[in-house]
Structures are given as C-alpha cells and as structure tokens.
C-alpha cells in the first residue's frame, strides 16, 4: 500500500486527489499531532498523505484588480513577512503557536482544519475572504463562511483541493486584534476578537467585527455592523449596549479544557466595547 504521494505540480496533485482517497498534507503541524502514535512510531494515517507543501503554484501571494490572492500553502511566517497581507491577518498569524510552527504551518491548513479556535479564520471572516477550490475539471469559489460548516467540517469535495484565498483589498484605519490565551506563545485561543474599520472625517464608512472560539464557527454579525455604518464616530459610544445585546444572542461558547462559557462570553463582549470605544 502506498502511504504517501509527492506530486511535482498542481495538476499531478489534483489527478491523485481525483483517483484515490488521500489526505492533503501541507505543513503537517496539525496532522502530525492528530495522527500521532507512541513516541518513535509511525503516525497513523488512514489514507495516503498527499504532500503539497512544495507545489509552487499554491505558495504565491499576488494582487490583481483589487483582490489579494494568497496561495493555500503559504506559510504563516510568509504571511507575516509579505507587504501586501492585511495588518489584521499578520497580527493574528504572529500570535499563533511558535516561530517553528509558523515556518511550517499554512493558512490553507488552518482553514481546512476548521477548528473554532483557528486564529486566521476570524480575520478572514472580517475581511470578507473567499476560498478557491479546484479539482481536475475546474475551480469554484465560496465565501469563507459558506466553506466552513462547523467544527472540523468544510465544504471540500473528495476530489478538490483548497488552492487559494482571495481577499478584497481595502484600507482600514482602525485595526484591533485581541487573542486571549493562556500564555504569550504556543497558546490555543480561549477567544479572539477582530475589529477593522475605516473612518473618513469621523464618519464610519466601513466596519467589520468577528469573534473566534465563542461558537462552533466564527461569528460575524452584519446587523451589528450595519447599525453603526454611516454614523459619526461620536455617536458610537451610546450605541454600544445595543451592539453588545445583538452579539450576545449569537455568542454561544462552550466549557472546555481551555476556558468556560461564562468567561468567553463576558470577555468577548468587553472586547467589542473596547474596540468601539477606541474608534477614531
């Protein structure tokens, strides 16, 4: 039985993906832990691994016509270093894991793992990102919130690979990211808050807020954003209680080994308030 494949290019990878059941393997920083067995022994993969971290076509970052295109196998370290990547995404990536893990782990892997605590995901929701899925016949593109269906569940067909993430390029002059974790590095998020906005002459022109790890998927509530869009920055503080109420209905955290529901809920609402109070 063949236990792994190392395709040279995307076409080969997609052919393999079509013809047999395989597990896409990029940086492997999640897979090698999930599949691990006793120390010194072989990790247990139920299907052959498809090594894709060397495929250059999915490791590039480029922009065309106002859209930033990030290859799925771009590492978290590369995201942080590249000029065109939005600051909010860099900040989130920078607080993930450790330097060594960021050097191997990829944005595509973080998305496809679809952990509610996956740290690149909340920024991608806020940025309105889409994902590009490809099989040997062609491509399709989905909004990221359509792609991620629940914890560990994605709308990826067995013959498809996630090949790229597209982000509309916008300017934000208010950028707020907070990851709440147990320590400064190598910490899984208890929750994370993403707030990005653009104000022009104190008018709020654009606003996105997303909260991670407080529900089965990232929360982004358009109703809350629309309540504030178009208003003067000075009006915002008095609307904060209403905004918090809207979020409160959607924040449904769980108790787990990292944190409990009460903590996650109260802290995330405080972060909403802190972001909005600081809006310039």
């Amino acid at each position: 039985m063949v236990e792994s494949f190392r395709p040279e290019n995307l076409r080969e990878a997609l052919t393999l993906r079509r013809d047999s059941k395989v597990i896409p393997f990029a940086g492997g920083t999640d897979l090698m832990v999930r599949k691990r067995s006793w120390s010194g022994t072989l990790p247990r993969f139920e299907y052959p691994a498809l090594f894709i971290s060397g495929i250059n076509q999915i490791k590039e970052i480029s922009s065309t016509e106002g859209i930033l295109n990030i290859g799925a196998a771009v590492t978290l370290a590369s995201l942080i270093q590249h000029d065109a990547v939005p600051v909010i995404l860099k900040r989130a990536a920078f607080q993930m894991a450790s330097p060594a893990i960021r050097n191997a782990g990829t944005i595509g892997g973080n998305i496809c793992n679809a952990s509610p605590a996956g740290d690149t995901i909340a920024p991608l929701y806020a940025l309105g990102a889409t994902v590009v899925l490809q099989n040997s016949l062609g491509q399709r593109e989905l909004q990221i919130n359509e792609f991620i269906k629940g914890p560990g569940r994605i709308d990826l067909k067995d013959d498809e690979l996630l090949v790229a993430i597209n982000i509309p390029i916008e300017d934000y002059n208010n950028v707020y990211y907070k990851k709440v974790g147990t320590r400064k590095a190598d910490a899984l998020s208890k929750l994370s808050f993403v707030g990005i906005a653009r104000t022009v002459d104190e008018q709020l022109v654009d606003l996105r807020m997303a909260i991670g790890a407080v529900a089965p998927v990232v929360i982004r509530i358009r109703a809350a954003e629309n309540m504030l869009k178009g208003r003067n920055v000075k009006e915002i503080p008095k609307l904060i209680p209403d905004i918090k109420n809207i979020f409160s209905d959607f924040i449904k955290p769980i108790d787990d080994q990292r944190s409990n529901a009460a903590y996650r809920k109260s802290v995330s609402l405080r972060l909403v308030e802190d972001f909005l109070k600081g809006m310039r």
Partner: protein
Amino acid sequence: MEKEIEFVLNGKIVQIKTNPLRRFLDVLREDLGLKGSKEGCGEGECGACSVLVGGILVNACLTAVGTIVGQDVLTIEGYRETERFKVLEKAFAEAGAVQCGYCTPGMLMAAEALLSINPKPDEREIREAISGNLCRCTGYSMIVEAIQTASKRGEGLW
C-alpha cells in the same frame, strides 16, 4: 511502504530508505544516530527537537521525513562545528544558561535562526525568537543574556 529519500544533512548528502510519514526526529535519532535533537513533547510545543531545514527553524517531531527530500538540514551536531556555535557556547556557559541541558540544543538552533536574519536583536526579539522553546530550569533570563552577549561578541559572524 518505504521510499528512497535523499537530502543534505550537516553538509553531506544522505540517502535513506524509509516510510515517508515517519517523524524526522525519529529518523535523526534512530536511523542516523543523532541524539542531539530531543523529544520533549512530541507535539511541537517545547522546541527541544528544533532543527534548521533550508535555514528555517522547524520542529522535527512534526516534520514528516518525506517532506525533507532535497532539503538542506542542519542539526546541532552540524552546528557544533561552526565558529558561530563556539561564540554561543562560551556565552551560554558564562551566563549560566545551561542547567540540565535538555532544552539547550533547541535553544541554540533557535538562536542561530534569529541571528542569521537579525544579528543585533533586542531583548524583545530574542524572547520572541525562543518563544517556541520551553526551559524548565533556568527561567529564560540567562538564555536571553547569553544570546545578547553572543550577538555583541560575534561581530561579522552573523
């Protein structure tokens, strides 16, 4: 099923035949007898297994050997032979940055990864660079001091 895997290890070409899904840490320790990289956790949280692949710091316990094909690997055994190491070794010894020594190879690889792109780091940058390396003995301050000292003394080396 085993495959031929060829890569450069500490400056020499190595060919092994093994299952590509095996952890690179196990290949280093069991097949190649290089015990300098340690298993502290087996899940990428402690950094005791850190090696450089293509000059980039990675955790060998999370690296499948099949992804090492054609790469240029440096382990502590190879690094030990360099001038840069000697400067770090002296600085670590003087600062008291080694107690049990278990984290030390990983710390040195992380230090090399840092200094090779940032020869004059400040304290914050050093702490950030070793943030994936756990030490149960020293409390880190001596290690940070050792790396600062090495960076001052190592003019022109990095």
